[in-house]
């Protein structure tokens, strides 16, 4: 189980940071998930297994779950990794606010649009994965 969680930490951390997360943050993720002891349904397990087998699709899974309303276990685990990474000094400046030029707002609008498209595709993907017999 610890090995599975380490793999999740690596995948989620790489998704969130665009690079391999530190060993310390991976270990902290494992510890927190083990300590939280949340029951996981069969559907969630299927989705989690799919996510781990297809790490390049994490962003779509995350996007699809974001609009589904409730906090699924898969999304909760990505969220845990997000919180863990924010508390590492070496990543602080990736989370703290940053001075941006005036035109940065256009980049933000692009991100919003991209996110909406990903959410639509992700929603369909999530439905397919959890419904697949």
């Amino acid at each position, binding site marked *: 189980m610890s090995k599975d969680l380490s793999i999740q930490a690596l995948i989620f951390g790489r998704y969130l940071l665009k690079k391999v997360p530190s060993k310390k943050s991976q270990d902290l993720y494992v510890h927190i998930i083990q300590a939280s002891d949340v029951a996981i349904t069969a559907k969630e397990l299927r989705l989690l297994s799919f996510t781990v087998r297809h790490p390049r699709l994490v*962003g779509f899974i995350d996007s699809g779950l974001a609009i589904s309303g409730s906090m699924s276990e898969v999304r909760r685990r990505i969220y845990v990794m997000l919180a863990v990474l924010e508390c590492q*000094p070496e990543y602080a400046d990736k989370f703290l606010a940053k001075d941006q030029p005036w035109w940065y707002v256009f980049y933000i609008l692009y991100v919003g649009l991209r996110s909406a498209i990903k959410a639509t595709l992700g929603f369909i993907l999530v439905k397919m994965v959890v419904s697949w017999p």
Partner: protein
Amino acid sequence: MALADYIVVGSGCSGAMAAQTLIEAGKSVVMLDVGNEGTTAEVPDKDFLSIRRQEKDQYRYFIGKDGEGIAGESIGKGAQVTPPRMHMVSHSDELSPIRSENFSPVQSLGYGGLGIGWGLQCWTYSDSELKEAGLNPQKMQAAYQTVAERIGISGTNDEAAHYTLGPVTNYQPSPDMDRNHQAISKQYEGKKAGLKKKGFTLGRTPLALLTEDFKGRKKYRYHDMDYYANPGLSAWRPWVTVNELRRNPHFIYIANMLTLSFKEINGMVEVTCFDTVKKVEVVHKARKLILAASALNSARIVLRSRAAYDTKLPLLCNPYTYIPCLQPSLFGKGPEAHKLGYAQLSLFLDEDHSNFDVSVASLYSYQSLMLFRIVQQAPLNFVDAKSIMRYLSTGLVIMGVHHPDRSSAKKYLSLTRDKAAVTGDVLTLEYSLNQKEKAEIKRRENKFVKAMRQLRAYPLKRIDPGNGASIHYAGTLPFSSSKKDFSLSPAGRLHGTRSVYVADSSGFTYLPARGLTFTLLANAHLTAVEALKHD
């Protein structure tokens, strides 16, 4: 051991203040308290940005060593219960069980009570509000001054002073405003006339926060770690006073004591407690008893003492909504070094300028509660939400709107037997607003929303965190001149007793929107004064 003069139940705001008055009068006091204490690693005496960039163990206080601070409440309700403050709420479900379908209170058995997480706002009630609440305005004016002198407050004598400081004259200057509040204040100056016609006044929020050194405590240093630490004791918390009292030989603090009931016998009061460590019942005795366990728990103790199961008592709670707002002029800025997390401005809605039935919005900027909490609020994948929220966060202001409350038939509590509970009973709560109340709240909030737009802080959406989220509770043992059961005399004495007083907000017969803490501190002092008069 000689019989103590007083037992005080609870180490929160009202317990601490009542105990101080009694000790200053030369009495002996035993404080009974469950008194859960924090166990989180010490927070370094550094500012937020330095900690973020340097401290390897910061996760211990930002998210908790087991991540217990991650799956917390949303930003408007309970987010201030960070890992270093979690002892404020620990064991309350087990030892002070609640049953309700429509009311979720926050209770505390911590050392310092709900004062551990208090936002430090020190508003006074107007004379008309005090009268409506069953309090004596002349006595309360003097009591507000006494409390301000004891705990140290900071404020500004601006045009909102009749809503904020009221009669208080001894205060330090307000802390510096951060850029979010400066921007709102600047907009207000330009639009004041129009907003005042609509009943709005904006002013500095008086806080129990030092801006000058005071009685061995240090002035605030803008570390923006307010939700995690209190370096130099610049913020007043009840445990600051209780710690001081514990140095006095006439004050005894006994922890791990959950007060169950009391009875008057042979000219003294016997208080039965449950020792939460040894799991046995213990009896303590004194000449008089002052209950300061909070409106909910004082009522619980009184009902249990009288075996009054299923008797309904009234319940007051400020309806509360929080509304995140965006200030586009502050998007895409770097982090702010010289900052504080407490509310710095208050916006009052007083349509007939009577200073009665006023609604109030507290304004908070956002930095030290971390980005992940607001990222979660966006219906987006976390990577994109992080990019967007990082850009928007410097322009984020949270408006927390409180409304006044009156009793009604649909707001009550009762004690119900429950064999499964540690104490053998559970507090059942019912709280519903009628259509008229809901319509009035909605009408006022629409006005707040329009006002904030004028101040160039654009509200996103209204979030109702549920009944009980304001963490302001009162009125369970209302003041009454007639000697009704389960009511208090104007002096705070429980009717039907000779020596039992209630010093928290249980007696209030009306709950103004302005946070009740400063008023309950003053009332606790006065209750102790009244109890002393009859010694």
